[in-house]
Each structure stands twice: as structure tokens, then as C-alpha cells.
């Protein structure tokens, strides 16, 4: 019997083949992996005071559960960070929940608003984080992709949202700064988006994981501060990106008490509690977070170099990153995303992020390549790899040659 016949049709055809053999592939030492949004991958880089957080926990509470909503001390530290970085006063009991990473937080935050059987809609810009195009469908909802344009630096056009809103729309999901384009949405854009959300009575899910790596000259504006948005916004942040702790699996959600009450009530049943020692490390990290600014400066230097190396290659269009540690290329003139990425693997011995399968949204597979310049601890090693990418792209075989 095929057990797939017993499954929801949305699940029935899923194949994990993308992973088959991938673990072995990841162990290859003849390749450089500039594809995981994982700072300084694969090098060791944890600041000493964060390690101390783990050591102390191992000698005290590491074996035991915390409350599913997270340790009191961590929630207080997060509330302080939210005040400092996002400019809002929040209550550490009523407005915050700690989770095991932002990946499952997408699912967790959106799920209450997607009623099974109704195919409620989630609007998300293209290109944007891959979860936006997979998660809603797996929860019985539907993603409505909203185009953005290179000539706008991939900023949002609210008229494109207006064209696509319907009675079934429940959520607008944005990643700001945006992955993969490195866009920091403009204040004016976010004000218009807020007005749109309020007028259509929508929930906004805002993943701001890269906000502390906003480069000089760009304003990271917090949409949650706009009157009318606090009660309908779920803000997500993580320790992975700004702190380079992807392997820790620690994130949090911030929301108005009415929404947070629901999330806290079902946390243990839906996502479970986060790891205790990891939370202790999180407290240590937040108390002494100067290293975050060091990372930001480092990535800014690398962003400028990456842009310099990749923006004057015939057939390749490139967007200057405004935040984060990745750069988005349009290689459509050379080939599809898969073709170019396979080529870079062969010729430059570098693995970059292909958009094959339209993972960043419909159409992105035709042209989009994301390169992580945040890989490798050593800047020169990183630049060496970017050089190889540059050389390979300069030598890309032209059609007919």
C-alpha cells in the first residue's frame, strides 16, 4: 500500500530528494560553501562570554526544561533589546515568547490566522525568504506572490499589493532587511504598507532577523511603531544572524498581548520549549552585545568588496546590499540560476545559492543567484573565494561559443 494515498494532497507529492546525499556533499573539503546564511561558516567564531553562558548552564540547569515561553531572565533581556533596537516598550511576560529558531516561528506565527479549509492568503514579495512560498501552503493556506523590481532596488510597490488583495487575505509577510536581495525597505514604503494593512484589516508578519546588520546610510525603520500596527504585527527576530549563532536555534516573537496570549497558550503543543543552555547563552549574548556592531562593520566592508567584484561583469546584474551578508545577482543573460550555479561549482569550486525551483518566489529560478559573503572568518579567505567567482563569471561560456 502506498501510505502517500492517506496524505493531504499538498503533502503527497513532496520528496526529500533535495537532501538525499546532501550531507555527504556538505562534508567536501574541496569546495567553499558560500550558500548558507550562517555567519563565518564553517569557522569557529563563538565569543567567549557566550560560551561561558553554556558552561554555567551545564553546571546548573542545562538538563531541565524551562517554561515553554522561555526563561524569565531571557525575556527581560529581549524586552530590553526590543526597546533599544526597535524603539518600543514591551512587557516581558505579555508580549514576548522565546522559540527554537525563526524557521518554525514563521509557521507558528502564521498558523493561527489560516483557517483549515478556507485557503486563506498570505501576501509576500518576490524575491523574499523561501518560507513565504512553502509554509502557507503546508498549513492549508495559500501564498500570493507580489512582484518587486530591480529598478526599485526591490523595494515594495504597494499598488502591486492592492492588485492582489482579496477577501481571503489574512497576512502580509515581509523580511526586512530582505533575504535574498539585501533591501532595507524605505520608511515611506513601510508607512504605505501599514496603511494598506490597516485598511484591509490584515496581520503583518515581519521577520527582522538582519536588522542589526543595516549598513551606514540606510534607515532600518520599524513598521511596528506606526499607529495602528502594534496590535496587528508579529515581529520575529533571531540570534542566528546578527549574532552568528545559527546552530544554537534561538529566536523570539513579539506581539500585542491578545496575539501573544494565543501563541503562549499553544507553544508547548505546537513548537515545544527551546533548549535551556541555549537560552542561558542568549542572556549572556544580549548582556554583552558589542560584538554585533563588530560583525556589522565587517560585513559592510565585505559588502562593498563583493559589489565591486561582481557589479561590472558582462551579463550579470547586481544589487548593492543595504544590510545582511549576502548579495543578489541577476544572471538571466548568462543562463538559468541552476546553470550558473552548477557552472560556479565546477569552475570556481564554490557552492552558492541557486534559486532553482523558484525558491525565492515565482520566476526567481530563471535568473537569481544569492552569494553569501559572510562565509569564512578570515576576510582575505572570503575575498579569495569572491575573486574566484568573479573570474569564473567573466569566463562564462557565451551562447554559441
Amino acid at each position, binding site marked *: 500500500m502506498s*501510505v502517500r494515498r492517506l496524505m493531504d494532497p499538498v503533502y503527497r507529492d513532496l520528496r526529500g530528494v533535495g537532501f538525499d546525499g546532501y550531507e555527504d556533499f*556538505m562534508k567536501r573539503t574541496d569546495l567553499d560553501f558560500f550558500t548558507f546564511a550562517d555567519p563565518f561558516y564553517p569557522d569557529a567564531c563563538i565569543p567567549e562570554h557566550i560560551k561561558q553562558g*553554556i558552561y554555567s548552564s*551545564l553546571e546548573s540547569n542545562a538538563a531541565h526544561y524551562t*517554561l515553554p515561553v522561555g526563561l524569565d531572565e531571557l525575556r527581560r533581556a529581549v524586552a530590553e533589546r526590543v526597546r533599544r533596537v526597535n524603539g518600543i516598550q514591551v512587557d516581558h511576560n505579555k508580549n514576548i515568547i522565546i522559540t527554537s529558531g525563526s524557521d518554525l516561528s514563521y509557521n507558528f506565527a502564521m498558523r493561527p490566522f489560516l483557517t*483549515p*479549509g478556507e485557503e486563506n492568503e498570505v501576501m509576500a514579495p518576490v524575491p523574499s525568504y523561501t518560507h513565504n512560498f512553502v509554509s502557507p501552503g503546508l498549513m492549508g493556506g495559500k501564498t500570493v506572490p507580489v512582484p518587486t523590481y530591480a529598478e526599485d532596488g526591490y523595494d515594495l510597490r504597494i499598488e502591486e499589493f492592492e492588485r492582489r488583495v482579496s477577501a481571503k487575505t489574512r497576512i502580509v509577510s515581509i523580511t526586512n532587511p530582505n533575504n535574498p536581495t539585501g533591501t532595507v525597505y524605505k520608511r515611506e514604503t513601510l508607512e504605505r504598507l501599514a496603511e494598506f494593512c490597516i485598511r484591509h484589516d490584515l496581520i503583518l508578519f515581519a521577520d527582522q532577523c538582519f536588522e542589526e546588520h543595516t549598513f551606514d546610510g540606510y534607515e532600518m525603520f520599524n513598521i511596528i511603531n506606526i499607529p495602528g500596527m502594534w496590535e496587528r504585527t508579529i515581529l520575529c527576530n533571531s540570534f542566528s544572524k546578527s549574532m552568528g549563532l545559527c546552530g*544554537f*536555534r534561538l529566536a523570539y516573537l513579539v506581539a500585542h498581548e491578545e496575539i501573544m496570549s494565543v501563541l503562549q497558550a499553544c507553544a508547548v503543543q505546537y513548537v515545544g520549549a527551546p533548549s535551556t543552555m541555549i537560552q542561558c547563552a542568549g542572556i549572556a549574548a544580549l548582556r554583552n552585545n558589542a560584538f554585533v556592531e563588530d560583525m556589522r562593520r565587517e560585513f559592510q566592508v565585505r559588502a562593498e568588496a563583493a559589489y565591486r567584484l561582481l557589479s561590472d561583469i558582462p551579463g550579470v546584474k547586481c544589487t548593492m546590499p543595504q544590510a545582511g551578508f549576502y548579495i543578489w545577482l541577476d544572471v538571466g543573460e548568462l543562463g538559468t540560476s541552476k546553470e550558473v550555479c552548477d557552472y560556479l561549482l565546477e569552475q570556481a569550486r564554490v557552492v552558492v545559492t541557486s534559486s532553482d525551483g523558484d525558491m525565492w518566489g515565482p520566476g526567481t529560478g530563471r535568473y537569481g543567484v544569492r552569494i553569501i559573503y559572510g562565509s569564512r572568518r578570515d576576510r582575505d579567505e572570503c575575498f579569495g573565494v569572491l575573486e574566484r567567482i568573479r573570474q569564473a563569471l567573466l569566463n562564462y561560456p557565451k551562447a554559441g561559443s
Partner: protein
Amino acid sequence: MFNPRTLMDPAFAKKTSKGGTFSFQMDMKKQPTAMNWADPYRPNDTVPPHVKQAVIDSLNTTAAHYSFPTGDMELREEIAKRVLKLNGVKIDPRTELTISNGSDSAFAYVMRPFLVPGEENEVLIPVPSYAHNFDVPPLIGGKSVMVPTRAENNFDLDIEEFEKRVTDKTRLVVFTNPNNPTGTVYRRETMEKLAEFCIRHNLICVVDQCFEDSVFDEHEFVSIMALPGMFERTITIGSISKGMGLCGFRVAYIVAPGEITDVLHETAVLFVGATNTMAQAGVTAGLRDTRFMEELRREWMVRAEILGSILDSTPHISYVKPEAGFFFWIDVSYYGTDREVMQYLVEEADVLVSTGSGFTDPTHIRVIYGCLQDRQECISAVERIKAALERHPRNR
């Protein structure tokens, strides 16, 4: 005034964190002895040295970085060995195993593929059992159908009760073995009958075996996935939290046939994200030297014996003797509701126990005797429960 609940799936709109046990604990000024968390030796520091060392080594190498969404391969290989030894089933760690970040999130993850949104597919769940079994289906578009079990029958499964409740919308049977809170270790014969039922009605079986390391000597533990015709339709949730006393690490695993695991791997990044890297390193080390796990099991057996005697001499309560560690499921209906007794024991015995309502039965409380590393401290806590009940107003 904007009310977000009006935009929610009704299953979520009715939930609130106010007044739940967790908020009760958060509000308490003084913390009584916690006999409500199924968390071995809580709150003492008990991570075994070899596990600690592996975590520390990981901090200096890979801990900062993502591990594979479906779990570190070395850990999966150790778990495959464990599954063979404990459950008698040989699995391929690549295609029949997934690591998840604790068993709590595994329920929604594994049930979801079989519940079609809008169809209100049904899940059969014997009760009393772990709350997730029946609390999770409504959160993922399904409907929980409770199947009663009885103390007179030692909480064994009665397949007749399943037959009475199966419909053409039934998709899943979900149960816990050994059972939390009753401490039941289902007999081979019961598992065979349940297997035959699942096969006949073409159902998927989800079994949570997180207490399988704590089965007492006299009992045979049977993994339903090992029975003929069952592997292809069984999802087994395993955990190291209880058996290793590492609840705070958040590492669990899911054994399922290739077709199901394929789907789970493809959706791992959404429900699980990835499991934290350093904890996986710690658990791998733990699985390579499991003597500390056997010590825990033996300790539970000793405690069960001693504490059982104390309970046997406590007036007007009754319980079915547990067959696995580390809790007692006690009928306290003589003294009032579960909440009343829980509050009384907080005040008079300085212990916090679990109310039975959470497991569907307000006539019972669950007392965790796995807390506190010091056996005598644990015994004293139970003696305080006995003393408090002896002087209860209803006994004057």
C-alpha cells in the same frame, strides 16, 4: 477596537495563556517542590560528564553553525543502533529517521500530513494520556476522538472501544507507550490487537515512546512498529529527554518508513528548523556510553517500591501500580477536584503536582517521583503529601 481573534482559526482564537498552570507557576512567589514536571532529577545539576564534554567540544568547533535540518548523521547512526537494541527494528538512518528539536513539536509535525484541512479528519486517542495526543489535532485541522480506558482494567487498551468510535474520517491512532500518566506498559497481546485494528481500517499509528528507557524489570516492552504489517504505517516518536534526563537539551527523533520520512524531511525546515548543534553532539556522546541511563531506570524502580508503600498507607486514595518510571497516577476524588487537591498540597505539603484534567481526568493527580536527585528528599516530599492528606478536613 481591533481584535485579532476575529481573524483567527477558531481552534486558536479560543486559546489564552491567562490562568493556565504555567501562569500559575510564574505567579508563585515561593516555589514548592516541583513534582509536576516529567523532568528527571529536576532541579539538580545532572548532565553526565561525557555529555558535558561533548557539548564543550562542539562549542569550539561546529556549535555556531546550522546542522542539517533532518539531524546530524553521526547522531542518527547512534539512534539507529538504539532503535535496533531497544525496539528490535533495523532502520536506515538516512531514509527512516529524522531528528527533531524535542518531541513536543514532533506531534504536529508527524500528524499534519495525514489531516486534510477542511475535512476534519479524526484521530483516535486512548485516554488518559499525554495532553498533546488530543490537544494537537485541532491545531492542525483535525478532530480528536477520545477512547476511554479504565483503572479496573489497569488502563489497558480495549479495542472494542476503538471499534465503537472509528469512522470513515478516521486517519490516525495516537498513543503513548509506556503511557503518561498511568505508567502502563502495553502488553504484546494488546499491541497485536491494536495493530490488527490499524491494518484493518487502514490507519496510521503514531506512538510516543519517550519513557521506553524506564520500563521496570518484570515487563516486556513491545514497539508496535515491530509487529507484522505495522512498520509501513507507524510513526514512532522517540526522545532522550526522559531516558537520559536531558529534557533541557531538546533532542528527539522520529522513526518512520521511507515514504513518510521523505515527506518529513522535505518539511523539516518548517516545523523543526533544525535541532541545536551542540545538544546533538552531547546526545551522541550519551548514546555511546549509556550506563547512566540504566542507573536512572534502577533508581525509578527503587523509588516506585518505597513510595508505593507510603501511598498504600495513605487514606482514601487509590492508584494502579506503574510499570515504568517515574510518576504515579492517583485517584484523589475523595478529597475534592484535582485543582482543589493540587492547591491544598501546595499549601499543606509544599509540593506542586499535576492536575489530572490536563490528561482528561479531574478525579486524579499525577505525582512525579523522578524529581530531586537525592532520594531521601523525594521520599520526604511524598511523606508530606501523605501527612497533608491524613490531616485533610475530610478526614476529621
